[in-house]
């Protein structure tokens, strides 16, 4: 089933070519991984797909819908949520408000309505409980530990009810116990029907978690396939070992 499809995506910053005519597709309903050495264009790829930066050229379609050139909030509404590489939460807001910010009222009446409605607060608590940070509901986000902030960011993304979730280094700077927890969550959420695209440097995590892997090197996909194939791919080894 076709999910996110990218054709001919290019982006350069001044002289640096971050993405060079990239065409990839990620199957819907799976846990996909995007790996590659530092500076290979993974984050730039996320930024282009989510509309945070405008690509120089290329087309982005999602489930048959053309998303090229749409502003970020429209892409979010099309069902694509994302986390940021260096975890981003709303620092001077409570944990609960962080989640309620992800609720997008459609009608004028809903926009004018109270932000702390009962149904939405309950839904937010559900996600906080699932992340195991429900006891921090009233704490200001900036006072949370790094790991708690990562969980909070994930809870916020989930609160916006995306079908597809792009995670940029979910295990970055996180202790091993929490890494396991995050992996378990991703698997569970995938089993519930959500598609993932995970950028990650932790190879154990990538190999054990993902169904489909795409490898970038210098803004260009050099390999793709299931973990077993990627593990033994010479070009991948070359890119990582700098051969």
């Amino acid at each position, binding site marked *: 089933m076709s999910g996110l499809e990218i054709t001919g995506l290019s982006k350069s910053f001044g002289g640096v070519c971050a993405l060079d005519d990239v065409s990839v597709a990620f199957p819907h309903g799976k846990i996909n991984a995007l790996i590659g050495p530092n500076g290979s264009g993974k984050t730039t790829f996320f930024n282009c797909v989510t509309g945070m930066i405008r690509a120089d050229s290329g087309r982005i379609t999602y489930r048959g819908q053309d998303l090229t050139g749409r*502003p970020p909030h429209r892409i979010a509404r099309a069902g694509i949520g994302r986390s940021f590489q260096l975890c981003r*939460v709303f*620092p001077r807001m409570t944990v609960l408000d962080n989640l309620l*910010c992800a*609720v*997008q*009222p459609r009608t004028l009446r809903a*926009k004018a309505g109270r*932000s702390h409605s009962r149904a939405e607060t309950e839904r937010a608590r559900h996600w906080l409980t699932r992340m195991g940070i429900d006891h921090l509901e009233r704490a200001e986000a900036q006072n949370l530990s790094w790991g708690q902030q990562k969980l909070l960011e994930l809870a916020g993304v989930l609160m*916006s009810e995306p079908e597809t979730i792009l995670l940029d280094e979910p295990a970055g700077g996180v202790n091993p116990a929490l890494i396991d927890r995050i992996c378990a969550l991703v698997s569970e959420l995938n089993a519930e029907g959500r598609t993932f695209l995970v950028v990650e440097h932790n190879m154990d995590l990538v190999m054990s978690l993902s169904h489909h892997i795409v490898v970038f090197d210098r803004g260009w996909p050099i390999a793709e396939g299931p973990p077993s194939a990627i593990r033994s791919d010479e070009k991948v080894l070359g890119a990582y070992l700098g051969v």
Partner: protein
Amino acid sequence: MRSDSEPRTTTSGSRTGGGGRTGPLAAPIARHRVALGMKLLLYAVALTALFTFPDVAPSRYEVTVAITLLNYAVLATAWNFVGGFTGYISLGHGAFAGLGAYGTALLVVKAELPSFPALFAAAALVGLIAVPVGYAALRVRGASFVIVSIALVLVLLLVFQSWASFTGGSRGMVVPRPFPGMLRTEHHRVFYFLFAALLALALVTWWLIDRSRFGLGLKSIREDEDKAQALGTPTFAYKLVVFVVSAVFTALAGGLYALWFGDLDPVFQFSILSGAYMVLMALLGGVRHLYGPLLGALVVGYALEYSKLEYGDTPLHLVTAGLLLAVVVLFMPDGVIPAVRGLAARFLGGGQSSIREVTAAELLHGQRAAGSAAPPDSRTRKEVSS
């Protein structure tokens, strides 16, 4: 042994819970009550003072100062729709006040509209003008936005100064009084209450937005605009809407001032200074709080009026304003209200110096509550099994 230890721990558990009601558990509730009581008292005092002031004021002069302060309060609160919610610092809001003032004056003089319909029509027009202005200005963030907002005032100043045939140019413009036969004292009294009503309207609107989903969206823009977008918030539309609301309230204040004062000078109407005062007042009071700008307006406005009275029309009031700004930025980056709240909390023995402590206290509170509600809790069982 088992049957013995279980009830004992249970009773001791409920005893700490019961004891808590008068001891540690009662503290947050009592503090809450005290805070609520103080709040109600403050409201009562403030409202009484507001309503009786024109009658008890020693002379007409005090009433005019009060009107000036109320005008500042409306302006600062209006500014805070943009500055407080979205974090965009506009130094150009003086332009909307000036447009409101000139719009009202021109509609009265040239179009011969009655005063108050002219005021509302002018505010509506400014709202319309704010759409393209906001559309252009809100595309840039941070310092760039500040500079664009300054440019807006300067352009309008040039226009209104040079377009003499229409606006009276640099000689200014006389606005007919709305109640021609009325005595001076009564005129001031009426405008005192009109400004108070406008302030109330602005505060209620701010409060309504503050508690709404729209308001939370705006605040998420202030915190991290990219993140807000990634979560699906239509940030640009939100900013534009609140910018227009802010411009309309600013214009209403400017127009009401024109009707009250009766004399307009483009140099004062379109000065960066008036925009800078709004920023200073809001920052001083605290932009995250409903009453922050109001409080800041009272402090700054009073200081300005006082230095004008004592030292005449020297640049000294500018020095006063500059000093106040320095104090705020250095010592109270969040404004007076949070600073005072922090002090009050310490004074009441809460020790609420950081959110972390509050959560820790609440955690404990929650655990205690759970402990007393369900006596054979996990603690008891653990003791039994061990």
